[in-house]
């Protein structure tokens, strides 16, 4: 029997919540995506928290919050410890997305769900794969092969194929079949008849009519989608030589662009081709100014300008700030490039008709001053004293207690997390002394950049706890002079961002509610880069999975696609609810046999497209190694019902007949009139091409005449008779 496959959604079914699904293949649990929304609502993650510890592998599909936002939180708080698999750009840009999210959030609230360290450590263990790389899992997942393939939605965005014993499970969400300016289209169509396809119905009801070159732009988000628009703006700008500057404003803008420049392998053929011929990197954005804080923008010369700012939901970050500032001038335009997440400000603005007023809570982080500062410092000092006291207590305790190795290793770690390992904010007393962890300070930075370790914190019975890595001289000669202050793979951040992160001045968040008059124009243009409803249907029909699981869409869209697929694609369509486990184990029967040389020498294959077919009559025997083996029949085989193999397309056949000099035309009702008398038509249920609708029924009729037999011969020539 087949491999057992169970699917249970943890989030993101029958609505547009973030994506997160648990797929268990013969007991090996895959977590497909680990998303969160821009509101960071922990209640969404409840289902995940119940299963996080049983997850054996995490597969990430896209580098945005909806697909990987919860990873740091789940790793830190929910006990998720499985290895994570993603493509290089998903890893890299995902990391930057999370930095950007964190920094935007931190500016406006006391954000404490995760820290930059958590982000770093979550992304440290990502195993990076390239497209179409077949990665063989080992250990518990022995026999399972996973492979990311191009999804076409974002840079590095992948659809995942999980294979075990020839059984394929394909996870494809947010794919895009069209070629974008910088990305290739998805290869989903090349998968044929997988056992299970898990896909989204997100755009099932949406039909996109915009012509790509009619799209113009002003405003957008999500890091990698920026790129698309950035790319688009460029030739446009150079053509018209506008004098308006373009700004790209996120906390991680320049790192993003720098990384993207080196991701040329992952982009479309045309981009790499232009690099090969002219060595022009498409992301040397000559007309775009990269900004990492809003003051720079404010300092920019007044006048018309275009700003790309992050956070499409307008829930936090620069985009929200700018929106509030600009919304009441009718000359301004806010351009959305994708449908906002449900329940966010962006979604509200996109409703028709757009609201005249919106109520916005603006929060701001301000440094403490006056009495507050003093109070804070006192508090911190108190904490510091307590900390020191505790540390010394612990130390004493340790020396007293007969110390097994277990105690030693665990205890100092507990202290560790409390004192030194937080980069931002809660660092306690060390206002100016910053621990550098997780990013590289630029060479030009001065004193505060040097690592400082709080000596009071880490003591064990042998003295100060030493991190051996600090003393390892990395590959002596090689590193001499090359690296400034121990570079880290994890991140590369702009100078000002770094200082922003390191800014540990005591501060607080103040909020005030504003009513913003929305008098600027609001336009939505589709740069989402997802397939629309029609193409989704035709793609699914082409893939025609044996079983289909629909996720991530409104109830309406899910129902719609479900009905459509039930009617014309496959009989097994599921739309599981959250935490509902459905069993999509295929009821396929199969066994393996060896084909004996004797049998094969008598088989005459006929070539048909990619494959070759033949009829075999054989008898089961055993090989020396006791395997089942097919041998030629000892006696004459019983005759079988002949089979016509082939796929007749009326249009093609018409051309074929025309080339043979037969007069052909389409008559009404899909009938093909050949010559004067003979008609040819398809009868019976007209199923989808390659769908599960059974054999084609073709009817040829006419009076007894020579033409009839001639056309019948032509018709036969389109098929193989087995």
């Amino acid at each position, binding site marked *: 029997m087949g491999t057992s496959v169970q699917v249970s959604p943890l989030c993101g079914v029958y609505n547009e919540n973030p994506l997160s699904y648990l797929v268990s293949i013969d007991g090996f649990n895959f977590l497909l995506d680990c998303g969160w929304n821009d509101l960071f609502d922990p209640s969404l993650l409840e289902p995940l928290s119940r299963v996080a510890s049983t997850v054996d592998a995490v597969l990430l599909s896209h580098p945005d919050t909806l697909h990987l936002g919860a990873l740091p939180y789940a790793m830190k708080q929910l006990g998720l410890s499985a290895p994570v698999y993603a493509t*290089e750009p998903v890893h890299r840009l995902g990391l930057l997305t999370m930095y950007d999210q964190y920094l935007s959030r931190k500016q406006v609230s006391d954000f404490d769900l995760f820290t930059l360290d958590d982000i770093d450590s979550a992304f440290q263990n990502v195993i990076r794969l*390239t497209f*179409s790389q*077949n990665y063989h899992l080992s250990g518990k997942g022995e026999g399972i092969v996973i492979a990311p393939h191009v999804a076409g939605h974002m840079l590095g965005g992948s659809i995942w194929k999980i294979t075990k014993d*020839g059984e394929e499970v394909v996870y494809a969400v947010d794919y895009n079949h069209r070629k974008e300016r910088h990305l290739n289209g998805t290869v989903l169509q090349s998968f*044929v*008849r997988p056992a299970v396809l898990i896909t989204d119905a997100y755009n099932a009801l949406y039909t996109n009519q915009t012509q790509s070159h009619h799209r113009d732009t002003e405003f957008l988000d999500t890091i990698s989608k920026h790129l698309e628009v950035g790319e688009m703006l460029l030739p446009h700008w150079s053509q018209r030589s506008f004098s308006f500057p373009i700004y790209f404003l996120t906390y991680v803008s320049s790192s993003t662009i720098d990384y993207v420049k*080196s991701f040329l*392998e992952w982009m479309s053929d045309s981009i*790499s*081709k232009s690099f*090969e*011929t002219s*060595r022009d990197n498409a992301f040397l954005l000559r007309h775009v100014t990269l900004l990492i804080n809003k003051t720079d923008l404010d300092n920019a010369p007044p006048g018309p300008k275009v700003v790309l700012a992050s956070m499409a939901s307008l829930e936090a970050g620069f985009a929200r700030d700018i929106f509030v500032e600009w919304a009441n001038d009718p000359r301004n335009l806010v351009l959305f490039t994708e449908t906002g997440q449900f329940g966010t400000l962006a979604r509200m603005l996109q409703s028709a008709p757009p609201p005249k007023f919106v109520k916005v809570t603006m929060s701001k982080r301000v440094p403490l001053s006056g009495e507050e500062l003093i109070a804070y410092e006192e508090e911190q000092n108190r904490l510091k004293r307590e900390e020191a006291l505790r540390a010394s207590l612990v130390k004493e305790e340790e020396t007293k207690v007969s110390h097994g190795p277990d105690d030693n290793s665990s205890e100092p770690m507990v202290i560790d997390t409390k004192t030194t390992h937080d980069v931002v904010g809660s660092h306690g007393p060390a206002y100016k002394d910053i621990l550098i962890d997780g990013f*590289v300070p630029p060479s030009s930075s001065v004193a505060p950049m040097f690592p400082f370790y709080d000596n009071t914190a880490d003591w064990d019975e042998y003295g100060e706890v030493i991190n051996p890595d600090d003393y390892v001289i990395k590959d002596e000669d090689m*590193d*001499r*002079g*090359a690296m*400034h202050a121990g*570079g880290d793979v994890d*991140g590369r951040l702009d100078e000002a961002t770094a200082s922003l992160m390191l800014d540990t001045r005591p501060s607080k968040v103040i909020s005030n509610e504003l009513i913003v008059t929305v008098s600027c124009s609001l336009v939505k243009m589709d740069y989402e880069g997802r397939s629309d409803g029609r193409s989704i249907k035709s793609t699914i029909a082409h893939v025609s999975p*044996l079983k289909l699981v629909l996720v991530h869409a409104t109830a309406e869209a899910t129902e719609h696609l479900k009905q459509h697929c039930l009617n014309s694609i496959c009989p097994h369509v599921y739309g599981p609810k959250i935490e509902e486990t459905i069993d999509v184990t295929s009821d*396929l*029967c199969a066994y*393996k*046999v*060896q*084909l004996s040389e004797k049998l*094969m020498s*008598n088989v005459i*294959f006929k070539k048909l497209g990619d*494959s*070759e*077919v*033949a009829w*075999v009559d*054989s*008898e*089961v*025997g055993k090989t020396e190694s006791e395997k089942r083996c*097919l041998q030629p*029949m000892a006696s004459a*085989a019983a005759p*079988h019902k002949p089979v*016509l*193999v*082939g796929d*007749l397309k009326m249009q093609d056949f018409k051309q074929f007949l025309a080339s043979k000099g037969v007069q052909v035309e389409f008559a009404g009702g899909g009938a093909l009139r050949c010559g004067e008398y003979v008609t040819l038509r398809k009868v019976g249920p007209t199923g989808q091409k*390659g769908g599960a609708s059974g*054999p*084609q*029924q073709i*009817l*040829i*009729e006419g009076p*007894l005449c020579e033409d*009839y037999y001639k056309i019948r011969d032509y018709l*036969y020539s389109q098929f193989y008779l*087995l």
Partner: protein
Amino acid sequence: MASSSTSLKRREQPMSREGDQLIVTPLGAGNEVGRSCVYMSFRGKTILFDCGINPAYSGMAALPYFDEIDPSTIDVLLITHFHLDHAASLPYFLEKTTFKGRVFMTHATKAIYKLLLTDYVKVSKVSVEDMLFDEHDINKSMDKIEVIDFHQTVEVNGIKFWCYTAGHVLGAAMFMVDIAGVRILYTGDYSREEDRHLRAAELPQFSPDICIIESTSGVQLHQSRHIREKRFTDVIHSTVAQGGRVLIPAFALGRAQELLLILDEYWANHPDLHNIPIYYASPLAKKCMAVYQTYILSMNDRIRNQFANSNPFVFKHISALNSIDDFRDVGPSVVMASPGGLQSGFSRQLFDIWCSDKRNACIIPGYMVEGTLAKTIINEPKEVTLMNGLTAPLNMQVHYISFSAHADYAQTSTFLKELMPPNIILVHGEANEMMRLKQKLFTEFPDGNTRIMNPKNCESVEMYFNSEKMAKTIGRLAEKTPDVGDSVSGILVKKGFTYQIMAPDDLHVFSQLSTATVTQRITIPFSGAFGVIAHRLGKIFESVESSTDEETGLPALKVHERVTVKQESEKHISLQWSSDPISDMVSDSIVALVLNISREVPKIIAEEEVAVKSEEENGKKVEKVIYALLVSLFGDVKLGENGKLVISVDGNVAHLDKESGDVESEHEGLKERVRVAFHRIQSAVKPIPLSAE
């Protein structure tokens, strides 16, 4: 070396074991260094690895022996890296031969390939007719080259392949090819040592059945990287300290970048050297810097970390020189110039100027091809010939410090021990070195399970692989797992090298193929009574059922449960049936019969007489036909004793019993063939059973 199709030879395919024979033939790089090109063929699939030239020759002489093969039969061409001896005959092969397969290389290789070959075409000083290709050919070839990323699995015509990092140079790859479960690893040039910017070659996850491996370094052992880097910097430091000049002839790409990284770093750490200029004199290297600055992801972690601060390929102490005219030779300096072999060009010009001053030094940083000046001066001759034909004393110090990014003996043997391939084929090595390597490897693998071969150019290595063809029976056909002796009948679908057996009804479920039924309906003019047809049909066919059509109430007949004959109107009858050969035949005979009725009056024939007579006649006829067909198949067929037919083919004899179809023969193959042939002939000449279901 003509490219005309007349000189293309088609390889003789042995008839019996065609599927199992694997042939590997080096067309270049067999017992030599340069013009790498290895041909491989297995189960009807052919692959060519690399397509290089021998840099020591020019024109046709530099090409691999392409006339040994038929380029049009090659399915896939895989290029490991951009060096001339691995990629430079590609434009020729793509544009000037009948090759029509697909070409793959990595992103970085493709980007540099174009720059490098364009430069090669410009620099090479051969006559127009000796030119293998021009810039136009290179540009055209770019469109045909497809890119493959490391580890990405690509399938072409059932050939699966993917590549691993090979070290050596930027973008260098080792290819693993999988044809029907047999794996072949072609290393190209590789290095297992991580250096300043490249990763070490990976160890493939799977052990290959055949490993085609380079043997450039033979049994040599490299010095450790630290020692040779120290030697290198020490020589340079002391030479410039004494006021001498240092010439480093190096190939523009690959090692040059590594050496520049070393120099830039050394200068950064030694402020006293800051007033001594370092130049690299290669416009090509300058152009390729953009590629090096982009494909950071193909490099090692060290470079990627440095990239976080500043691009390591933006040098602080090194400047580029466009030509010798820009170079002011006014004191100590370090110049890296191409070509590496000192054949001509900038490096040779400088060498000619500097070679007689003993303060100067020349550092040969890597492997040199036989026949080049660089190879000659390693042996420190007293005199050298200058480009203008004069001789001059060789006073400058010559240092050979190998930065070769080829695996040395230690790396090769550990690599092979990890992989344990049953077959090792050595290529890309000088004959003597290769022989020594082979001997030494024999001692490493003494158990005799490993074959080590070093074929010469055009010398084929043949191997046999027992390919078990496994099929998967799926769907309705597999509902019950059969026991020995049960029969299995269904459609066998072959895609690439995978086989599936399924019931015809499942065909559209498990494959992209679909089945069809063709219903035919013809009308025949017939104005007689329908009863006549019924009567006549009843005389000829065994089973004729009469019924009435439900809609019209007109009579209908069903012949052999296949063909329905209906009276449509006073003047027409219609025939309807579902197409298959037997039904077509039945319907044809009905048509003939109906036409006959309307043409002639029925005759009364003495049935039995005819029947007996015809049976005898038929018997004779059948025998004749069988005999004639057997003769046409096997040639020598005689009538033996007790009515058996004696068939002899190539000295093997088979006895065929015409009655039972039994065959006796010593030779299994012949026996099987005769049996099948006889069975088919019989089914062709005997009456067709109509009850086929």
